[in-house]
């Protein structure tokens, strides 16, 4: 019996040692939710990294699930479990700051920004959104725009309407379209697309300054100006489809393309979808305009990567971050992704018509941050905003929704 025990122990030790020794090679685990259609862009970056640093084994760990909801939960358990990935995709802004930076889990990247000369290569508005308490916390690899209205020019011509410039004009245009037989001029998709629509309406009704004030706590949700947002939102929704919850955002876009709807408020990944997957030509086959009442404002969201504390090999991750922030890296990634580079000096010739127009706006417009995509609101707020939306959709009660939003804002300490 004793002899068997010793044999068992020695075998266990040998197994343990061999397991440990296998891990001698350098590893870089990249954690993201870029699967499916969005995978190739990340893959191209990974290949570039591999060619620059052949000794490092890159683990492309993706977790599928729209807009990262599953990935964030998995990331949470990883971080809480004391096993952070070497670098993880996170929306730049409060999604990172309000969750991980305040919990003291990320390293300050200001030295990296200075050594790579990025302070002048990214717009000031962007850097301020990435900063908190004196530090800069992530490297933005792309910029997406949230406040866009998509339409098919040929269809609009048939119906005899033009893209409305304000929300009031939008309501009037929809009425005209309904008379022409388009029952649901605006197409919306599942839950989060409601939030997306809401932030365009809010930006339009409030204007960029009051929008920012909402998130610094200077303007309360229960302020009459903010309650008006819900009133307008309700009016806009009256022109949308009732079976929205069953549609993914791609399916909603399909409806607009087919002509069952006229307008779709969606971020510019819709351009990537229509250009790459549906093979439509930007500008000719599909058109875009800033969401009503928001022209001159670029509501941005950005995917970025940071440096968590407690990882095994900082050098590998820092090299990854350097690649992400470089002109080369951003110009490899963004044409494939359908977004634009965050850098001001990217080579615009390799981008399609939409991206070029977007890049022009990026340089000239006022910059506002998206709420749903984690720029101006932390996760503790956005994850509960769905409840606010449910409250509103149940009874179309603006005051109830506004009070709920304010209650959540108070609970998470918005703006502090």
């Amino acid at each position, binding site marked *: 019996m004793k002899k068997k025990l010793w044999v068992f122990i020695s075998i266990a030790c040998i197994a343990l040692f061999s397991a440990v020794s296998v891990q001698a090679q350098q590893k870089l685990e990249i954690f993201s939710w870029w699967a499916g*259609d969005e995978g190739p862009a990340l893959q191209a970056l990974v290949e570039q990294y591999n060619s620059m640093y052949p000794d490092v084994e890159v683990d492309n760990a993706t977790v599928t*699930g*729209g807009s990262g909801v599953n990935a964030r939960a998995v990331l949470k*358990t990883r971080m809480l*479990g*004391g*096993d952070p990935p070497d670098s993880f995709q996170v929306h730049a802004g409060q999604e990172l700051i309000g969750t991980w930076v305040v919990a003291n889990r990320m390293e300050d990247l200001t030295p990296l920004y200075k050594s790579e000369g990025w302070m002048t290569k990214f717009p000031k508005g962007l850097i301020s959104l990435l900063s908190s308490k004196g530090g800069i916390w992530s490297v933005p690899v792309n910029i997406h725009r949230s406040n866009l209205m998509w339409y098919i020019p040929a269809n609009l011509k048939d119906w005899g309407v033009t893209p409305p410039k304000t929300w009031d004009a939008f309501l009037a245009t929809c009425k005209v379209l309904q008379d022409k037989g388009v029952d649901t001029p605006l197409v919306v998709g599942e839950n989060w697309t409601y939030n997306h629509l809401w932030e365009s309406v809010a930006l339009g009704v409030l204007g960029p300054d009051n929008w920012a004030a909402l998130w610094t706590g200077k303007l309360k949700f229960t302020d009459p100006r903010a309650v008006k947002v819900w009133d307008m939102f309700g009016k806009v929704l009256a022109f949308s489809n009732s079976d929205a919850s069953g549609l993914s955002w*791609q399916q909603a876009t399909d409806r607009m393309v087919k002509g069952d709807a006229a307008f779709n408020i969606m971020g510019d990944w819709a351009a990537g979808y229509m250009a790459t997957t549906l093979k439509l030509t930007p500008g000719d086959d599909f058109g875009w305009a800033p969401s009503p009442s928001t022209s001159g404002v670029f509501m941005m969201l950005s995917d970025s990567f940071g440096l968590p504390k407690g990882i095994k090999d900082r050098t590998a991750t820092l090299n990854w971050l350097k690649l992400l922030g470089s002109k080369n890296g951003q110009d490899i990634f963004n044409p494939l992704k359908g977004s634009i580079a965050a850098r001001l000096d990217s080579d615009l010739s390799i981008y399609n018509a939409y991206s070029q127009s977007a890049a022009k706006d990026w340089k000239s417009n006022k910059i506002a941050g998206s709420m749903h995509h984690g720029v101006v609101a932390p996760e503790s707020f956005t994850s509960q905003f769905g409840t606010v939306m449910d409250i509103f959709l149940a009874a179309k009660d603006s005051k109830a929704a506004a009070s709920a939003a304010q209650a959540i804002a108070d609970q998470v300490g918005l703006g502090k």
Partner: protein
Amino acid sequence: MSEAAVTGRRFSWRWLMYVLLVGGIVAFLVPIYMVVVTALKQPAAINLSTAWQLPKVWNWASFQQAWVAFSPKLKNSFTLTIIAALVSAMIGSLNGYVLSKWSFRGSKLMFSLMLFGMFIPYQSVLIPLFSFVKAIGLYGTIWGLIVVHVIYGLPITTLIFRNYYVDVPDSLVEATSIDGAGFFGIYRYVIFPLSVPGFVVVIIWQFTQIWNEFLFAVTLSKTASQPITVALAQLAGGEAVKWNLPMAGALLAALPTLLVYIIFGRFFIRGLLAGSVKG
């Protein structure tokens, strides 16, 4: 009642019975038809309006794709399930032996307290469990899941074995005891050899429960150590999903427990009935 009247009436009822039963079978198998048909379609051919039609081209590639995506997870599930089922069965057998043949004052209370653990919603212990598994360094490993499933499987395995051993005649135990066998001796010479059906029931039951479990799996595993249920949920939850892959994946995930059920159905049912009450 005349014979003819009885058989006459029974005849018509019997016909109705068969109709209902066949209808029931169709209703129960309709989802499976859908799964198989969708899994065999090419992604481009999957269309909501033609969902019920048989595939024009039989696309076996979905199974291949699913296999490639899932085979490491299947391995995880097999490792987890087999080890945890065996260990919890062994310990449950010993516990059941104690509770049935060597009951002492308070053993029934101890048993009830243990049984309660079978019924609790695992959400009510999820956070401390997570902290604990992380603290002992097993977070994200298959061993963490194995330990968790063994411990939470103890109540049901103990219950099944206890009820099973109560039926072992005490005279047999008595005789062996008089012959000089002690606690472990009786187990080795009397109880254990008789336990084979019991072990089959317990192992099959535990295999099914642990293979199908989701909450612990999704909370305590990392990508490398994920069991199949988590992988399937993530696959199906992806955006703009092409349904042939999740359907093929669902079939792969269901196959082991389904086979166990079909082959060992009798024992499966015994495990199922173990926690219930007679009149």
